[in-house]
C-alpha cells in the first residue's frame, strides 16, 4: 500500500471549496423540504414534515416514482444484456463494420436528448406505437447504452487474457470460461455500468417529456409538469426523498458488497 500523502493548506482549502460547491445545493434543497411555509424558503424558526405528507396526497407522484423505478431497472438490465456481448465482439473480434457498430452504440451520447425525443415521437407516430411502456423502455435503453458499453469495454480491455487461456487449458469450454472466469472478472464493470445506466435513466427528463404518455409518466417528467404550474416546497420534499433513497441504496450496496469492489474492482 502506498501511504496517503497529506494535503497542504492550499490544497485543503481547494478541496473544501469543491466539496462545498457540490454539496451546498443538496443541503439547501433538503433544508427547504422541511419548511412549514408555503414558499421555497429555508426554515429558520421551526421544521415541519407537511410537504412530505403532501407528496402522499398526490398518488400520481407515487405512481410515477414506481414507474420510474421499473423503467430504470428494466432499461439498465436490458442495456447490460446488450452491452456485454457487444463489448465482447468489439473488443475481441475484427469484423467488417466493427468501427461503425462501435460508433452507432456511442452515438446517443452526442445527439441532444431533445432531438432524440422529437425523433422518437415522430417515429412512434409513424408506426402507431405511441404511449406504451415497452417503447419507453426501448428509448431509455438507447440513451443509456453508451455508458454501460464504455464501462464494460474498459473492463474487457483491462482483463488479463491469460486467466481465460489458463481456464481453457484446464479443460473449460468457451461458455464455461465466460461464466466462471471472464464474467466474475468484469463484474465491477458490469455493476458499475448498470448503476450508471440506472441513474441516467431515472434522471432522464428531456427525451422522456416527448415519449411518455399519461399512463407512463416518469418521476422527473411529473416533477417538471408540476413545477411548471406551481412552485411550492413539495418539489424540495420529493428531491430530499430521492437524495435519501439514493444515499440509502449506496449505503446498502457498500455494506453488502463494498462500493470499491463493485465500482473499482477487487481491492
Amino acid at each position: 500500500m502506498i501511504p496517503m500523502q497529506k494535503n497542504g493548506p492550499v490544497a485543503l482549502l481547494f478541496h473544501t471549496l469543491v466539496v462545498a460547491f457540490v454539496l451546498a445545493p443538496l443541503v439547501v434543497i433538503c433544508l427547504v423540504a422541511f419548511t412549514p411555509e408555503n414558499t421555497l424558503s429555508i426554515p429558520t424558526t421551526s421544521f415541519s414534515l407537511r410537504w412530505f405528507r403532501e407528496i402522499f396526497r398526490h398518488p400520481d407522484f407515487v405512481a410515477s416514482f414506481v414507474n420510474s423505478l421499473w423503467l430504470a431497472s428494466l432499461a439498465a438490465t436490458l442495456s447490460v444484456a446488450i452491452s456485454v456481448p457487444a463489448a465482447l465482439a468489439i473488443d475481441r473480434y475484427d469484423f467488417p463494420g466493427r468501427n461503425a457498430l462501435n460508433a452507432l452504440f456511442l452515438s446517443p451520447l452526442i445527439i441532444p436528448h431533445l432531438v432524440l425525443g422529437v425523433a422518437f415521437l415522430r417515429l412512434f407516430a409513424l408506426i402507431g406505437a405511441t404511449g406504451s411502456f415497452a417503447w419507453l423502455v426501448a428509448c431509455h435503453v438507447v440513451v443509456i447504452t453508451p455508458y454501460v458499453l464504455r464501462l464494460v469495454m474498459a473492463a474487457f480491455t483491462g482483463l488479463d487474457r491469460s486467466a481465460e487461456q489458463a481456464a481453457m487449458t484446464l479443460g473449460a469450454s468457451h461458455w464455461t470460461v465466460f461464466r466462471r472466469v471472464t464474467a466474475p472478472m468484469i463484474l465491477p464493470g458490469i455493476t458499475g455500468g448498470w448503476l450508471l445506466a440506472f441513474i441516467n435513466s431515472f434522471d432522464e427528463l428531456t427525451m422522456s417529456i416527448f415519449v411518455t404518455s399519461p399512463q407512463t409518466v416518469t418521476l422527473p417528467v411529473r416533477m417538471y409538469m408540476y413545477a411548471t404550474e406551481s412552485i411550492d416546497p413539495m418539489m424540495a420534499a420529493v428531491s430530499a426523498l430521492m437524495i435519501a433513497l439514493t444515499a440509502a441504496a449506496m449505503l446498502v450496496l457498500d455494506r453488502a458488497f463494498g462500493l470499491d469492489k463493485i465500482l473499482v474492482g477487487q481491492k
Partner: protein
Amino acid sequence: MSFLTLEKLSKVYGDFAAARDIDLSVAKGEFVSLLGPSGCGKTTTLQMIAGLVEPTTGTIMLDGRDITRETPNKRGLGIVFQSYALFPHMTVAQNVAFGLEMRKVAKAERDERVATMLGLVHLGGFAERYPRQLSGGQRQRVAIARALVIQPPVLLLDEPLSNLDAKLREEMQFELRRIQQRVGTTTIMVTHDQAEALSISDRVVVMEQGRMTQVDAPYKLYENPATPFISTFVGKMNRLDGVWRKGAAEIAGIALPSEASGFVEGQAIALSVRPEKIALKPAGQGRLDGTIANRFFLGGSWLFTVETPAGAILVSAPNDGEEPAREGAKVALDWALASQRIEPLAQGAAA
C-alpha cells in the same frame, strides 16, 4: 522413445516467420528449456504446443497422437503463465480445484488431490486465501499446483520465474526442479535467462530469430556453443577477432599458438575463451600481458577486466580467501590450448 514430437512446426504472420521449422523430440519425464532473447519464437513455440496459437505448418505428436489441430481444452496440458494467470475471484483451493472440476472429479477426491498438491508446493496453510493475499513466490507455486493437479502429460512453463526477485528466483529454480522430479512430468520451459535454463534443464534448445540453432545438454552447450551468438548469450565469453598466420591466431599483431588447423593463411578468424578458463599469472609468464582495469568481488569469485594489446578481456578467478591483484597491477593471462576455440569469421571476411 519420444513422448512429445514437434515436426517442421512453423508459425508465419504475413511475411514474418515467428517460428520456423521447429523439430524437437522430448522424452518422457525430460525437462527441456527453450532459451533465447525476446522475439526469438520460443513463446510462440510454447503456445503452439499449448494450442493457444495455431501452427501454420507442421505437426505436434503427443504420445503417438496427432494433437496439432486439437483445441487447448482437449489437450489436457498443464500451463504456467508468466503472469501466473490465477483466477482473482477464487481462493487458492478453488484455483487448484478448477481443472479437476472441469474433469468432473468427485468432490471428495478433488479435495484430497488439491490438499496433496498444495502440500507438495508447501502451501498447505494457504488454501482459503485469495491470490491477492499471496506473495509473488506463493502465487507462482499456486500456478504450478493448478497446472500439475490435473496430472498433465506435459507441463509448459512460460517464463515462470521472471516476475520474481533474484534471491527468490534462485530458490524457485531448485523448487521447480524438485517438484518436477518428484512428479516426473515431462516439462518444457521458456526462458530468456540462460542461468535458469542451464541450472535446471536436462536439455536446452537455443532459438534465434525463429529457428532452433542448438539442442544440447547444458554443459555441452556451454562448452561447445554452435554459433557465435550462443557463445556470448550462454555465459560470458571473450571473443578476439584476428587473422590466421603461420599456423597461429594473430590478434592485433600478437601470435597466439593454436592446436586448430585447416585455415587458410590470412583468413579472418575469431578466438574465444571463457573468463573462468583464464588464469592470472605474474607478468611475463603467460600468453598475453595486460593491466587490471577493474575488479569486481562477486562473493564466490572475482571478476577482472584486463586491458591487453589484444583488447579488454574478462577473467574470472575463484575466491581463495586472499586478496588478489589490484587495479593497475601488471599481470599475464594464461589458458590451456584445449579451452580456446578458433572459428572462421564469416561476417568479418565479408565486411
